[in-house]
């Protein structure tokens, strides 16, 4: 699994995760993901290239969202694949972390 982060306009940071977000993958991206969550205020997490999500991956996303929220910032998810979206919803994450289907909708929400 890998992770990259790019700054977009408006102080928004886009984090792209790629691969299997299972226990093995989550262990790899956990530290860099937490670093972004600690340093940035407005974060879009692009899950379009994540083909699998298990509970450890959910934990990483939730911890990151909590860290950002505790600083008065916001973290949103964009473009989860069908089954990944189903995992997020089943785990109740859809009511805690906003999920958008397009990057434009996600960045618009963060800009407001």
């Amino acid at each position: 699994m890998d992770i990259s982060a790019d700054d977009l306009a408006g102080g928004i940071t886009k984090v792209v995760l790629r691969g299997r977000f299972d226990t093995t993958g989550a262990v790899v991206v956990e530290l860099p993901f937490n670093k972004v969550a600690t340093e940035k205020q407005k974060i879009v997490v692009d899950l379009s290239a994540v083909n699998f999500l298990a509970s450890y991956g959910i934990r990483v996303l939730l911890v990151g969202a909590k860290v950002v929220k505790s600083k008065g910032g916001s973290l949103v998810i964009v473009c989860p694949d069908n089954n990944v979206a189903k995992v997020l919803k089943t785990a109740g994450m859809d009511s805690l972390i906003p999920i958008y289907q397009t990057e434009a909708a996600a960045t618009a929400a963060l800009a407001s």
Partner: protein
Amino acid sequence: MIAMSNARASRLVLRNDVAELERLAGWIEGFTGQGTSPDVSFAVQLCLEEAVANIIMYGGAKDDAIVIAVELERNCGALVARIEDNGQQFDPTRAPPPARAVSLEQAKVGDVGIHLMRSFANGMDYERRDGRNRLTLRFVEPAAPSSE
């Protein structure tokens, strides 16, 4: 030891080491690659990852040698997974559902694995036999027109 006369069943033995999860994922992919829908493959991957990760992380003390045997089998149109381990007794079918968090601040981290297993498998049975946990998960392909 790997001799298996039934080509429709497959068995994998794992140690209680997180590194084993990668081997589990590859093994499941090899099994489900043969005519399983992407949704059922995803469900099998998810439920077995959660079940085995639970045993590895909570089945015993770090130095305990826990042996986890996973079997996958096609049976009457369903895919059946059996997970057997000699870790401490744990019945996931009796675990309470996680509390629905009302806010991000109050949301508890963790506790969703068993809930995911319940939701993505079509059936989940547990028994404790001869000092071992035995969990059986069933996955059913969505109804489709049959040509048989």
